[in-house]
């Protein structure tokens, strides 16, 4: 029993262990240097990542509240990898920060919450994980302590997430009222599609929509992303969204399968709106963080198309795309993070003439943006292709025609950044930014991922075999 407990919850336990280590360090008399602390956390996260690949076992705990399968372990590994990359990238920003242990304690608490959320087999457990992953995030958004925008971001975040949690909880309670169960395994048998269930389901989707900032629930995103420190912004837009999407796809594909027709239509509508509005807003952004925020809204629209596929290919393509999205978006955020930490400049105009002074960083950002735009040979091409292909599997060619045209719009604004970096002249370009070994390592991981994940089909086939 104890053995099983240890093995099934190994990832959660390691994260909890790291949190406790940090707590003890904080309470202890001697203060560790920031650099040591950051490296220590990075090493422990790497260990956790490694632990995810050994002792693979599926099972359930706590009266079927908690479950683990190989797929779920893999998803947690992805989130862990993303967190590790962000931690490596934040080195320049964190090393002068006064509250490094608190930053990591909060960050890892949210990660722990996501792990529980992914592993939940019960809507209550899911809600607990969700809250654990949201509330510390609001505190994290406030981590540029001396900036007013940062506090504003935190405030907006906490209010909007409280609201969305309320919707979610309302939906869950009505679902319980009409089906008499909260267990995700028992739910399908009780779903009859009566109006109350559909209504509660809409509330659930709205709750999900808030968290992944799908249109029309996206309005909080831009301000929060702009105000938060870059590390937190990248965490919000990649890890936190990724976790919710993982849950969303597995819940929709398993528990809510009997209602597939109604959620297909909902997702169709939401994804079209999300793509178009995300793209149109992204066109006009001047701040790089805001720009990536809106572009990530559009990306979510594409991911929803994959979910509408309602097939093993659909699920596999969503998880595969999130893997690629972690690499691509984090590579882009990595460059912006570094530039912002060293020079404090975050606007598109600042990036004019960037190539003259920072060749390496320009190429990293360019490759990341090409991947986000879906241009081969980067992995983004494969990701988008498979998402759209999965969506087309339902025979809804209108949807993929809209999506394919949206790819053209999104390419425009990605190319705009590339144009600014490579082609525009600037009297006062960003000076040469020296990256330490840690952001460099993060970028190498990301670029390697962008190039290899698509061309070598191993990752997709592994995910596909897990999904089946």
């Amino acid at each position, binding site marked *: 029993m104890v053995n099983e407990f240890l093995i099934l919850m190994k990832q959660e336990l390691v994260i909890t262990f790291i949190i406790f280590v940090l707590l003890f360090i904080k309470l202890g008399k001697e203060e560790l240097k920031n650099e040591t602390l950051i490296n220590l956390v990075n090493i422990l996260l790497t260990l956790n990542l490694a632990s995810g690949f050994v002792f693979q076992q599926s099972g359930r705990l706590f009266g079927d509240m908690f479950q683990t399968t190989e797929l779920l372990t893999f998803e947690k590994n992805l989130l862990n990898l993303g967190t590790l990359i962000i931690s490596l990238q934040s080195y320049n920003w964190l090393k002068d920060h006064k509250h490094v242990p608190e930053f990591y304690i909060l960050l890892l608490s949210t990660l722990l919450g996501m792990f529980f959320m992914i592993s939940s087999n019960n809507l209550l457990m899911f809600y607990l994980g969700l809250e654990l992953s949201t509330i510390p995030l609001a505190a994290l958004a406030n981590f540029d302590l001396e900036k007013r925008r940062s506090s504003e971001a935190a405030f907006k975040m906490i209010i909007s997430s409280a609201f969305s949690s309320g919707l979610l909880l309302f939906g869950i309670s009505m679902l319980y009222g009409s089906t008499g169960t909260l267990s995700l395994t028992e739910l399908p048998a009780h779903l009859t599609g009566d109006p109350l269930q559909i209504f509660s389901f809409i509330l659930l989707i709205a709750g999900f929509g808030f968290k992944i900032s799908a249109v029309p629930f996206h309005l909080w995103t831009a301000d929060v992303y702009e105000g938060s420190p870059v590390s937190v912004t990248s965490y919000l837009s990649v890890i936190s969204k990724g976790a919710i999407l993982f849950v969303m796809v597995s819940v929709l594909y398993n528990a809510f399968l009997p209602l597939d027709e109604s959620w297909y239509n909902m997702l169709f509508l939401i994804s079209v709106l999300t793509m178009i509005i995300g793209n149109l807003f992204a066109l006009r952004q001047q701040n790089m963080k805001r720009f990536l925020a809106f572009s990530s809204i559009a990306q979510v629209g594409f991911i929803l198309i994959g979910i509408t596929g309602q097939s093993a290919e659909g699920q596999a393509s969503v998880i595969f795309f999130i893997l690629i999205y972690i690499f691509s978006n984090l590579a882009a955020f990595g460059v912006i993070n570094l530039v912002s930490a060293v020079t404090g400049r975050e606007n598109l105009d600042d990036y004019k003439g960037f190539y003259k002074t920072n060749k390496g960083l320009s190429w990293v950002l360019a490759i990341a943006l090409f991947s986000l735009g879906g241009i081969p040979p980067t992995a983004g091409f494969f990701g988008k292709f498979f998402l759209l292909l999965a969506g087309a599997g339902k025979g809804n060619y209108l949807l993929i025609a809209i999506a394919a*045209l949206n790819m*053209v719009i999104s390419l425009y604004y990605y190319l705009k950044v590339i144009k600014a970096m490579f082609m525009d002249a600037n009297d006062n370009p960003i000076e040469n930014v020296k990256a330490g070994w840690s952001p460099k390592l993060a970028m190498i991981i990301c670029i390697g991922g962008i190039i290899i994940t698509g061309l070598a089909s191993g990752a997709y086939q592994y995910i596909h075999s897990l999904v089946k």
Partner: protein
Amino acid sequence: MNLSLLIIVPLLTALCILPLKQLKQIRAVSLIGAFAQLLLCFVLVYAYIQQRKNGDVGTFLFEDNYIWYAPLNINYHIGVDGISIAMILLTAFVVIAGVLVSWKIEKLSKEFFFLLIFLSLGAYGFFIALDLFTLFFFLEIAVIPKFLLIGIWGSGKKEYSAMKLALMLMGGSALVFVGLAGIYFNTNSFDLLQIAGTNIPIEVQKLFFPFAFLGFGIFTALFPFHTWVPDGHSSAPTAASMFLAGISMKLGGYGCLRVATYLMPDAAHEYSTLIIVLACIAILYGAFATMMQTDLKYINAYSSVSHCGFVLLGIGMLTKTAIDGAVMQMVSHGLMTALFFAVIGMIYDRTHTRQVAQLGGMMKMMPFISTVFVIAGLCSLGLPGFSGFVAEMTVFMGSWEKADAFYRIATIIACASIVVTAVYILRATGKAIMGPVVNNEHLALGDANWNEKLAAGLLIVGIVIIGIAPFLLKDLIEPGTEIIINKVATLGK
């Protein structure tokens, strides 16, 4: 013969360029790489002819098939027939000429040659692909180098042109994607040969043919989606213009033929009237628009719209001779337009103007360049002895085989455009090359260097060989076109 070498050689060349520092080394490596490509293509042609002589009647030779994404039925499947070999040969010629004319480039030369070689990789991959996913992959791979080449090294309103070109071609790809997805879900395969073997229902064909044809058509300047051509070609640096007009536009023509027409022959019949109408508009409109141009690059760019119209006309006619002609026109136009852009680049490098009005009497100071200009011009207007005549003549003969009045009128309209071509070519040549010297500063300018002479010489050799001995090219492509036309003829009834 391992076809993957055609991808590996450019890739290795590009990777070898990356660590180099000095311009001399970079261009030496690029030239060696381009030369290796050309050599490889000659070996390929030789091996292909031998194989055919030995009685191999397979549709595609030197096939290789590796599983890429097993769950989605995606393979890395390559192979060639005569048509692809003609295209590959064209690519190799244009690449080596492009490297040679870019000899003097000094601004970010490493990046320039890297992107140039990378662009050729996409073209080779596209022409050898027998799997629609692989084909699409290589079609889109060229977006990055095209955008950067025009935007960084171009002239004039380069950013605008680069953006326009990238977005319009991406739009084309988006349409192609919808077409491919439609084919995939009705045949459950991306494999060209497998799909060719299955009968796609006619309703499905009618739905997805326009997507595929229009998508590829944008690449080959199908009216009214030709507007990226003049801007893109004129703003691009010389070598990139040569690549764009010589190779990239041919990707579209090849795709229209190989994917749209070959895989959906019934729909090709249904839509042939529309294709012919659009092609005729492109031919006429392109020719008349060229008459109004004063910039040499714009002249050649608009005339490309007109010339590529012949390709689409040949495909739309759906007779064997016409399709033969379309393929020949692709090769001929590729060589001719690359030569034209090369020689315009040479003139611009010396005089720093491309305006016809500011040029005159070039023959006096640069006889070699002027001669090349005249040759390119004569090939463009279809003088016998050059490839242009052979190709256009074949298209006309093929079109005339269709007896209906509509086809006759279309053919006559297309023929008439040649007169317009003669007007603009002869006018530009007369003014810039033969006329009186306009600017006395030009008298001090020197003639072509060895690298420019070599580049022009290679392309002229290609043009003249096709012009004098067209049967060489025709014999090469004929088995390929026969298979396409058989499919159209048997299923189309």
